[in-house]
């Protein structure tokens, strides 16, 4: 039963979200013209379908928990059949690390937060360094060189060649970026 509940969970969550969004769609504010469909119709159709599939999946799993797979794509099934004929080629399941994943997501979120304050260069080089270190790479000098050179190269390419203005950050960090830009001939 516990396994069935775990399998049901994603559908229950998505279904609840769809139900809430369906309610939000009923609240869309617009001036209705007689005889025409409003801007709420299309999202309601999509959400209705989404909700129906989620309810179907929840019921299907709860009613017959031992029935594993639902209907699958025709071509996908053929692909899987070919793959099953060569079990030796299957990749061994990789060991997973949730802390590493959460660390990576947190680090990336922190980077986005910092990029507005420190600017692209000052936020990116430490981020790349920290990301590589978090990923288990322990050659510190190579890591540092890769982070700094790569960041400067990207900055040069985007600001000088592609003409994309990257964030320079808030004061006093902006001054560092501006000085670097002058050094690299970026106006």
């Amino acid at each position, binding site marked *: 039963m516990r396994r069935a509940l775990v399998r049901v969970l994603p559908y229950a969550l998505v279904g609840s979200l769809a139900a809430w969004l369906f309610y939000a769609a009923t609240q869309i504010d617009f001036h209705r013209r007689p005889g025409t469909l409003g801007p709420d119709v299309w999202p309601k159709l999509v959400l209705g379908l989404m909700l129906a599939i989620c309810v179907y999946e929840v019921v299907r799993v709860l009613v017959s928990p031992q029935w594993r797979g639902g209907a699958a*794509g025709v071509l*996908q099934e053929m692909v899987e059949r070919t793959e099953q004929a060569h079990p030796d080629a299957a990749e061994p399941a990789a060991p997973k690390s949730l802390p590493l994943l959460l660390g990576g997501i947190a680090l990336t979120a922190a980077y986005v937060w910092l990029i507005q304050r420190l600017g692209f260069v000052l936020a990116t080089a430490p981020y790349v360094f920290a990301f590589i270190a978090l990923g288990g790479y322990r050659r510190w000098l190579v890591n540092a060189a890769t982070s700094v050179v790569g960041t400067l190269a990207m900055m040069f390419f985007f600001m000088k060649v592609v003409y994309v203005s990257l964030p320079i950050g808030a004061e006093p960090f902006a001054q560092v970026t501006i000085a670097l830009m002058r050094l690299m001939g970026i106006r």
Partner: protein
Amino acid sequence: MMEVLQALGVGFVHVFAPANLAALFVGLVLGLLVAVLPGLTLVMGVVLALPFTYSMHVTPAIILLTAMYVAGTYAGAWTSILFHVPGEPIDVPMLWDGHAMARKGEAAKALGWTLSAALVGGLAAATVMVALAQPVARIALTFSTPEYFAIIFFGLASVVSLGGASLANALISLCAGLLVATVGVDDTYGAHRFTFGVPILSDGIDYLVVMVGAFGLGEVFVRMEQRFRSIPLQSAGEASTRLPSLREAAAVKGTYARGTLLGILIGLVPGAGATVASFLSYGVEAQYGRRKALMGSGIPEGIVAPQTAATSSVGGAMIPLMTMGIPGSGATAIILGAFLLHGLQPGPQVFETSREIVYAVFASIFVAVIGMCVIGYFAARYLVRVLELPEVIVSAYVVMCCILGAFAARNNITDVWLIVVFGVIGYLCERFRFPITPMVLGVILGPLAETNFMTTMISFGNDWTVFFTRPISGTIMVIALLTIVYPIFRQLRKRAT
């Protein structure tokens, strides 16, 4: 026919203009590198290259991305054959006969068979693409909104019903994409839909953000959870290529033909890209080939079948993209995005309004196939050395490119936050087996589907039966519904027995 050949000739002239040729070369090298690196998928590579094309003219931009797409179907086979490491999911069937042939001491020969298969499949599919595009576009020009809606509906239906591992999950993913596309201010009524008072959401969620986040960042999170496994490599010094003789190639001409035909057909079907083509072609050869009993022991048929299909699927996928604006695969979805970013909507009109660009792109596929084989012949041994790069370093740069790509599109930091959100959604999709491609196609095709649906409703007095009563749209709608119903029916029948 002469008209098409003339346009193609002009296209070749455009391709050999310095800027376009440079873009093609860069695209080929990047595509080959992306295909070799196991941490980078072909689609992810094309997504990451997209921001670098923002400042380019539309022709070199599309040529670069298309060249990456073509090359991406080829080079992953090298690592499958040499190191038993598939660079892309497309290249898994190469492990079975390609690597087996290499183990027999014939690695150079295996690489030669791969090259010949990519060349034959790529050129044949490009020829079919050029021959079919104009007639299909002419037919599409006669379509009205119900037919267009029916075609988009068929495209979306086949994405979920043919390629997905679970029909329900694929449908949910598609609905999520269609829903994301509705966020923002509605064009007709000016109503705010799902903006929740957040000002930036009024402009809508850019499909680029969804693509970069879900395909790029999401994949990095998946690899991160798997601790960025690195691959121990043997020496790549022996990676030379020895082409099969004409007599040897003629002996497997049936395999070349079957693989090419299957690749083009699979490429035409939205949602079933090079990976499905490669596996199916191998499966067909193993079931119906002349030497089916020897498949898996290192015979040329086992290399030629998947490789011809993989490369020829590119030509097939480009037909619905260019003639109707419907992408047939993840990579063509991004190429469609690039077209839209440059203010060009692929479809039948584009053959009238931007003929030169269309045929330059077509011609570039011929040049790309030949160029990729030339580079592959001479440089495979050098390019596979990229595998020695630690995956975590490559991934750090992938994240950087994702962030830059999202920011550069609208110079808006909220888009960067959104790609982190879609990165996490992409990871969750992978984790819980919800395919990402339907979501991305939903975001891209959603506005088109809604506009055609609403326009039809307005034009035909809210009579939804019009989709079924007009001959062309009715036929397409019925086929689309059958593609959804058939897997369910099959599953129910299987369960009953």
